[in-house]
């Protein structure tokens, strides 16, 4: 985590400013961790039956899809963009997968049911990236097209019907367990680690942050900004496609009306609470995980203490405002 911060600062324009900003920002991301730990301690003291494997698994599995979508969203937000179409990508991928493994038996069917939907989702990303980079359409507007049409495409593919299935080999991605830990949770942690590494250690990661920080300057420095942005949108959509597969596996059914509904706003909230500025130029993958966990744990805490879900929404709103306000004052 700390490495990620230092690395982010390495691209700050003036070295003098970088030193002072680094010292401050270190506190900024630590605060999110402290908040999470404080909530854990509070729950350990005041919530009954909190310290159990089951509670942890429930809370972690609740955030898996939001975090996986949030990783991609963090990449897109880092370029200064936003992707509203992730829910639609989830629905499309979730609609295609059952059609493949229900009609094509054997291991090939299962393998294709993983590969083809994620590729289809990635194609949505290509489309978004094309609009943003080639036609210079604003990201909100560009991804609005698929936000509106994408779910409709998924519904047309499935004729709007619910596809129920029982396919343990496929559903292992969500229901399988490794040493008592759900596989989807492990997958989430692995993806967070891999993408945190990509952002801070690879050339693409550096290009991503520089592009978001000052696109014009990055372009003049010879950075292929269009390709960087394109890749960010493709990765975002592909990750959303993967999240769609997990979502339908959990439910043992695929309903294009429901899969990934509203996930774009949950993911953006997690990104914002996790410390990544929507202005671009920053990417805290680990922060997004913590942001999603804070929001989920808050909801769990309120529910466990008998406060209705509706009130939890109001508190969630306050938390988002408070978190972003505190981060803003740091800068």
């Amino acid at each position: 985590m700390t490495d990620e911060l230092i690395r982010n600062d390495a691209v700050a324009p003036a070295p003098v400013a970088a030193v002072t900003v680094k010292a401050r920002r270190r506190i900024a991301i630590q605060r999110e961790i402290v908040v999470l730990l404080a909530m854990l301690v509070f729950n350990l003291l005041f919530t009954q039956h909190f310290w159990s494997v089951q509670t942890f698994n429930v809370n972690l599995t609740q955030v898996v899809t939001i975090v996986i979508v949030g990783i991609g969203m963090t990449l897109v937000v880092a370029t200064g963009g936003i992707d509203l179409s992730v829910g639609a990508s989830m629905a499309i991928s979730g609609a295609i997968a059952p059609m493949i493994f229900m009609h094509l038996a054997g291991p090939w069917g299962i393998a294709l049911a993983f590969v083809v939907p994620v590729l289809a989702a990635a194609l949505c990303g290509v489309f978004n990236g094309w609009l943003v980079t080639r036609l210079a359409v604003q990201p909100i507007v560009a991804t609005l097209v698929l936000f509106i049409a994408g779910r409709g495409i998924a519904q047309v593919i499935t004729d709007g019907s619910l596809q129920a299935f029982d396919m343990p080999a496929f559903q292992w991605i969500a229901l399988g367990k490794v040493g008592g830990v759900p596989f989807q949770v492990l997958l989430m942690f692995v993806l967070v680690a891999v993408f945190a590494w990509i952002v801070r250690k690879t050339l693409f990661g550096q290009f991503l942050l520089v592009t978001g920080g000052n696109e014009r300057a990055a372009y003049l420095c010879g950075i292929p900004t269009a390709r960087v942005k394109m890749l960010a949108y493709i990765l975002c959509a592909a990750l959303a496609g993967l999240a769609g597969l997990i979502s339908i596996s959990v439910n043992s059914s695929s309903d294009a009306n429901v899969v990934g509904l509203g996930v774009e706003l949950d993911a953006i909230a997690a990104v914002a609470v996790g410390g990544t500025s929507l202005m671009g130029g920053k990417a805290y993958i680990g922060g997004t995980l913590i942001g999603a966990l804070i929001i989920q744990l808050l909801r769990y805490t309120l529910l466990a203490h008998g406060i209705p879900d509706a009130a939890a929404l109001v508190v969630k709103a306050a938390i988002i405002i408070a978190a972003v306000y505190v981060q803003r004052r740091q800068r």
Partner: protein
Amino acid sequence: MKKNLPLLLALAALLLLGVLRYEHFASAYNANAFLRYNSMFMLISVGMAFVIITGGIDLSVGTVAALASVVAALLSPYGTVAAVLGGAVAGLLVGVLNGVIITRLKILPFITTLATSLGAHGIALLLGQNDAVSIAADSSFGAFGQGDFFGMPIPGLVAAAAAIVGWLALRSSRFGRHSLAIGGSEEASRLMGLNVDRTLIAVYAVSGLLAGLAGVILAAQFGAGQPNEGGGWELFAISAVVLGGTLLTGGEGSIAMTIAGVLLLGLVFNLLNFENGLGFVSLSAYWQSVIRGVFLLLVIVLQARVVKRHNRKSAA
């Protein structure tokens, strides 16, 4: 004007298709029903146009409408005036809250209104106790959504009034000119001595107020306040504004073209119903969103080309 040509052409083509192909398309009944239903979207789109012109965005309009519909339904036993005012004031309050958070705490409009959207939904669910709230059976409140006034649907008239006032305000009032200036450059407006914060709060308040009115119409039209309605309305309004040629970077925009955008999106749905009524092909409702998306894409692509050519010309 040239930039709006794609939208106007698409609108004209759809109207022509409707008139030529379907017998009852150009009937008073259809126009009436069309206006009645789309009045809600016109209201929120006018508010959204103002917000986007200042360079902001308002994601809360959908749930604000839901909240206002619940408030109006709860107040309907105390009379129509109380219900309408109550719903409108509920929307206004959320709008003012948006404006205050954006200007005082300096949080991006996207995040602010995303959060207040969640909050408004939560409050609507709490007020409605997680369920729809029926309006008082003996009140005349329902007429606000279902009634006619000189043969015109009342919600359509409300929306038309809002659109005309908005159009005039943007063209020739201080408020409208300030909104455009702030969208062009907030910093420059501040340096020129405009009261930027007050104008921004007013803009979000207007958006909230209009969303509140849309919620009141929703409750009156369907006979119940619906805490879970309004999902996706904000994106409908944004696409209508975008179709109308308003850039999301702010600084320019048109109320009339925004209304044309609403009509286009609404017509797609209307024509689809007629097409299904003919019985040759049965296009499921799911095609509706696909076709809307395709129209949005077409207009965006055409606009991008016009803007590009325009930029090249002015650069040369």
